[in-house]
């Protein structure tokens, strides 16, 4: 069995952590950075870049670079029409179907893009374990976090992403709950905790009761389309508007440069009273752009966004049957809680200062690692009891929702409903499952359509079919059915409304293996070419020296020069092709035949360097 990790798969950044012998560890890259930007870029040759490198490519190859893909997980094309306009990549797909992300000539489902991020985290963790001298360093299982307010389709999409990345997803857990688990690690006390989690793209509020190591969520609420991204967009739009006519039809790369400047200004404003939005010069913006913004102006700009978090907080408190002053601790999670206005409004609402002694970026990954450790160790000191954020219902006559499992029910949760037939000899019944709080099916989120088949032919109304809905500890629904008169288990065909079928995931998995091999090959080929080009470059430089003829005449016979020229031409030809082995081979050949040349050059350089100096100076 391989290693197990906890993963915070964020809108903006992702992290990976595990529980070692001395407690939880957040895994960092070679430069000490724990955050992996959730950005994926695919170049024209099909090579995939993830993280910082992909983030850099946002400024040079925007249309092939995808960020904030979490906002599209488990969503339909119709949901996201409004927000696609400032994004450099294509957001499309069939009407009524799932979102497809277009990168160059290729199309990806959002879980496929997320899988690239997960694979990079898996690779990072494996490298870490290898460096630790672990014999068995493969990472094959993970707990992955999602916003508490994610619906069934969004959770399933996240689980699909894990599968596509070659990870067995042990559990999907909610981000605020994970945070509370990490936060509660060294707290022996009990009480009521509110976790306010404002991340890059999503907002969650969870109210928990902690007692005897049991972390019981009382209520949760949120908005899966509200976060730091929206602040960035407001600032970006501000700059584009102020550019006037110059702001029309800017290339995507320039929009990204503005966005980068806006993000920097936002970060600066967390500690300073004013900051500059500094956009560098570029062909489409020859003078660049500088705009000073004060904290007060910034606060006024983002106030409506922050206010949108308050109604869910009040609703969660009401559902938990609590008043704001009943809450003992307020914990802030997510990078966007560094915004001073957010802290102030949260403090005003609860009438107490929120905790800020936890790292809001890392606490979720640590919680995921702790949960992963609980699952594999079977230790029972701590237990998370989470809830389902949205009511589960079925469509009844007249398009009205009949609720079967109410929101804020502790999971796992189950419900059942009796069905019958309306026509003599009917052998199948269609069921439409939705999630949401509204009365009408049209106002709720369609989850799936089920067809119950294999009902024994009977007069209309006689069959008694019991359909069981089971929400598991991941918050994901499964359905089973049985005809009670005959005790016959029914077959159920599931058509997810905004998700991938199992067959589609399987196919993607096969494609991604092929793709992964191609990726690896592409990377190796690029490396080989780079190495070859540097040798070609150095050799060419020597041959073109103005004093070469003089040097060669004395030390390098023409036959040797001819050999070098031939090897050089042969390598150049190989670089033009894509045979990696051939490139390697000819690089070595050129290296061999230029050894003597290199020595001569080296000696000459030395002699030049020493000329005019006495031996004592050396």
């Amino acid at each position, binding site marked *: 069995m391989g290693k197990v990790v906890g993963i915070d798969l964020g809108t903006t950044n992702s992290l990976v952590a595990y529980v070692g012998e001395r407690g939880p560890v957040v895994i960092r890259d070679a430069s000490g950075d724990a955050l992996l930007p959730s950005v994926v870029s695919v170049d024209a040759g099909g090579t995939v870049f993830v993280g910082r490198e992909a983030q850099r490519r946002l400024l040079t190859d925007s249309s092939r670079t995808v960020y904030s893909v979490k906002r599209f997980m488990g969503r339909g094309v119709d949901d996201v029409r409004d927000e696609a306009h400032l994004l450099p990549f294509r957001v499309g797909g069939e009407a009524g179907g799932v979102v497809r992300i277009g990168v160059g000539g290729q199309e990806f489902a959002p879980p496929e893009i997320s899988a690239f991020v997960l694979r990079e985290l898996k690779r990072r963790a494996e490298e870490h374990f290898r460096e630790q001298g672990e014999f068995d360093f493969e990472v094959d299982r993970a707990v992955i976090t999602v916003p508490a307010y994610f619906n069934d389709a969004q959770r399933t999409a996240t689980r699909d992403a894990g599968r596509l990345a070659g990870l067995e997803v042990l559990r999907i857990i909610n981000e605020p709950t994970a945070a509370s688990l990490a936060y509660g690690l060294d707290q022996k006390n009990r009480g009521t905790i509110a976790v306010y989690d404002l991340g890059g793209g999503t907002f969650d509020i969870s109210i928990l009761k902690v007692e005897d190591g049991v972390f019981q969520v009382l209520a949760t609420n949120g908005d899966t389309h509200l976060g730091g991204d929206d602040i960035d967009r407001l600032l970006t739009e501000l700059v584009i508007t102020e550019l006037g006519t110059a702001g029309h039809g800017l290339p995507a790369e320039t929009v990204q440069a503005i966005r980068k400047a806006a993000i920097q200004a936002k970060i600066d404003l967390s500690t300073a009273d004013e900051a500059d939005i500094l956009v560098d010069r570029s062909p489409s913006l020859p003078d660049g752009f500088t705009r000073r913004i004060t904290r007060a102006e910034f606060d006024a700009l983002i106030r409506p966004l922050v206010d949108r978090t308050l109604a869910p907080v009040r609703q969660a408190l009401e559902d938990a049957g609590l008043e704001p002053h009943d809450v003992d601790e307020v914990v802030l999670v997510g990078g966007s809680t560094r915004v001073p206005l957010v802290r102030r409004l949260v403090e005003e609402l609860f009438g107490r200062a929120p905790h800020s002694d936890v790292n809001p970026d890392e606490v979720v990954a640590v919680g995921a690692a702790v949960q992963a450790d609980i699952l594999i160790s079977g230790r*029972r000191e701590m237990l998370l009891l989470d809830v389902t954020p949205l009511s589960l219902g079925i469509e009844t006559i007249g398009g009205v929702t009949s609720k079967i499992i109410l929101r804020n029910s502790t999971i*796992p949760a*189950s419900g059942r409903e009796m069905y019958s037939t309306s026509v003599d000899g009917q052998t199948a019944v269609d069921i439409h499952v939705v999630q949401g709080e509204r009365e009408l099916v049209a106002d709720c989120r369609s989850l799936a359509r089920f067809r119950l088949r294999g009902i024994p032919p009977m007069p209309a109304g006689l069959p008694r079919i019991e359909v069981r809905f089971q929400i598991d500890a991941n918050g994901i629904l499964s359905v089973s059915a049985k005809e009670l008169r005959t005790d016959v288990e029914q077959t159920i065909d599931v058509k997810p409304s905004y998700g991938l079928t199992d067959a589609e995931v399987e196919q993607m998995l096969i494609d991604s293996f092929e793709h992964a091999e191609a990726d690896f090959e592409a990377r190796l080929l690029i490396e080989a070419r780079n190495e070859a080009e540097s040798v070609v470059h150095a050799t060419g430089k020597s041959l073109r020296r103005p004093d070469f003829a003089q040097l060669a005449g004395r030390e390098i016979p023409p036959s040797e020069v001819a050999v070098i020229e031939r090897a050089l031409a042969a390598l150049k030809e190989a670089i033009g092709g894509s045979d990696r082995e051939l490139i390697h081979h000819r690089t070595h050949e050129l290296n061999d035949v230029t050894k003597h040349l290199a020595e001569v050059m080296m000696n000459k350089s030395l002699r030049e360097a020493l000329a005019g100096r006495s031996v004592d100076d050396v």
Partner: protein
Amino acid sequence: MTPEPLTVRSITPPECRNCSASVPVDEHFCPQCSRIQSLGRHGDYFAFLGLPRRLELDSQELDRRFRDLSRQFHPDFYYNATPSERLASLERSSYLNDAYRALKQPVSRIEHLLSIEGLPLGTSDQGNAKVPPSLLEEVFALNEELDEIRDARESGADPSVLAERLAAARRPIEAKRDEHERALAEASAQWDREASAGAAERRAALETLRQLLLERNYIVNLLATIEREAAAHG
């Protein structure tokens, strides 16, 4: 609205799947091999939680039992178990969560008691049924007042005056609700005292509870109607 309690159909004889020992229906684990048992036919939340069938319930004791049993059943702790144990853990956890939710609130607790004592409210009794005789007078007055308020609103009356009239219409209904909740508390205490009495006394106590609960649900629905009316005023 509380769903009817789950009476899960027995799919296996009441014996341990692991060691075939016979297991009493209220045991969660096999007395012989201590494996978690699949959830057979069960409908009694009180017995499931190991509590007496009483309506006065120590809320902290309920919480404690819920936490203890969660620690014993939760799927987290069956990750490496056999498929049948994992299924049993999922079923028992789901059932425990239902049981806890139903017993936590006094009203749903009474509803559950009635259903296991053979006097279920049924889905058509959730407050939409015909007007309980004891409420006829109030309901008649309320409907008349609501009609007048609607007419006044449509002819453009001052919203603040209408809001005042709505609030006034609310008051007697709220008083009725408070009265019923006191009566329910009294009837609950009566049930707890009669629990060991004869069948006739028990039946009478249950009938009282049922009647009060039906009326109370009806009143809650009336209040929701007033709420919707108030919302229509913006």
